[in-house]
């Protein structure tokens, strides 16, 4: 179990997609399909829809908020996001998704253990942002 700080409240469970590389959702995630399109990232080609997306922090574009919002509208967004440090740009995408479409994407950051050291892509993970914990379930 990993303790973390709540950015956006909510609870979600799903398969983890884990990368050590920072990611820009704009130019890195196709909101229409949910595919990671950052060709320089090891997750390139993987689909985030309904998954728990684990990456250190967002880089690059201010447009990542819009990318997350569009992905949410099209039901292609990750079910939860776990960062070392969540950038306000991504938090805003989730705030708007809830405000405009009632869609919740729990987001947590500042974990007491680096999640990429204990969670692998494919592991089932539960993110309880209300309690501020991440639990890996079945391997």
């Amino acid at each position: 179990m990993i303790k973390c700080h709540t950015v956006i409240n909510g609870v979600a469970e799903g398969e983890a997609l884990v990368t050590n590389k920072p990611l820009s959702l704009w130019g890195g995630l196709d909101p229409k399909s949910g595919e990671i399109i950052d060709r320089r990232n090891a997750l390139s080609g993987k689909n985030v829809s309904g998954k728990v997306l684990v990456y250190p922090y967002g880089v690059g574009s201010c447009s990542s908020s819009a990318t997350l919002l569009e992905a949410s509208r099209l039901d292609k967004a990750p079910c939860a996001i776990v960062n070392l440090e969540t950038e306000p740009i991504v938090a805003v995408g989730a705030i708007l998704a809830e405000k405009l479409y009632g869609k919740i994407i729990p987001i947590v950051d500042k974990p007491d253990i680096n999640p990429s050291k204990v969670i692998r892509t494919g592991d089932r993970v539960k993110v309880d942002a209300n309690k501020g914990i991440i639990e890996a379930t079945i391997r």
Partner: protein
Amino acid sequence: MFLTNEEEAMLNGEYGEALEIAISVLVKLGDIYEADRMIEVENAHIDSSSYFIIGESGLNLCEKFVNLGATFKVPATLNPLGIDPHRWQEFRVSKSYVEKQNRLAEAHISLGGIATWTCAPYQYGANLRFGQNVAWGESNAVVSANSVYGARTERLGDLTDICAAVVGKYPRFGLYLNENRRGQVLFKIESDKLDVKSFSYADYAALGFCIGSLAGTRVPVVTEIPKSVTWDQLKDFGAAIATGGSVGLYHIVGVTPEARTLSEACGGLKPEEVISIGVDEINETREKLSTTTEVKADIIVLGCPHYSVEQLKRAAIIVKGKKVVEGVELWIQTSPMAKMLASEMGIIDIIEAAGGKIHISGCFTMYNYAQEWGFGTLMTDSAKNAYYSSGITGVEVVFDDTEKCIEAATRQRS
């Protein structure tokens, strides 16, 4: 966070639904990032002007604000449309897309936006002052406003820029605060081995991308950059640093206004880390920005961020008397204002005579031009364009100096 009586009333809907939506988003964000209160902003730069980026959700929100009678409380410049508004057919943008983009553009104008349609409003259209609180989106514009002017803005996510401009405020956290503007990582350029005085635009872009990637979420301070560095070089450096990292502010000692000395740049503290940047780092970055070594570009794009008049002039000098070869496109992206000035100076005629296309308010990453045209390989002098295009448009990418890019466009193929 503390809210004034007026802000509370706005949040309760007493000033109408648009302001309620706008301020509720800002207050929620402020609470997450522990803002103590809201601050007034003197102007805004809106990054939400491209339909390719904000899609139906963004268009719906903008049109909703218009229908609710909202207007921008502060001067708000606008980012690229992503299409040339007059010549979109020539650039093969679909009519159905143009209809959506036009609706979005009209919504922005109805809200009171200033029709700059550029990602470099700090060069043409916007006004900034040292220490001024503003609300800017567009990562390269944010970093330029903070670093080159010493104005203060957070990195606004798309659509919060609309909210901030409608309210005239933003929550006070991040780069609005002195303590968050301190340089944290020192990057020492090995100027004895790197001839920084002769750096090209692409070299500065590579340097920026390298530093951004290494800085991550921390504020970088750079030494050994000559005072003779130009505005356009800082522009390309900034765009790249903001692409490589989560960087909204950098300091260059002796060059940028909050960094008259290293001590001032670091707020009187020692930097947490010192990193040397030499020949290897620049070369590795330049290689990393390309996805292929085969220089068979069928699309050459310059102007990311939008070229200034000076850069257009330089491109004209290089391309004069040459011709873009058949089967290859040369697009130069710029703002409407820079194009107007350059037209008067005869610069545009020279570029167009050579077969180059001026793409005003356009952006190669803001529409799938590659798909419409069947492009396979992009060549560009922009680190930002190089980085994003491979994902967004599926092209191979070659990153190189402006001269090499123009040469590739005009060199006869065997």
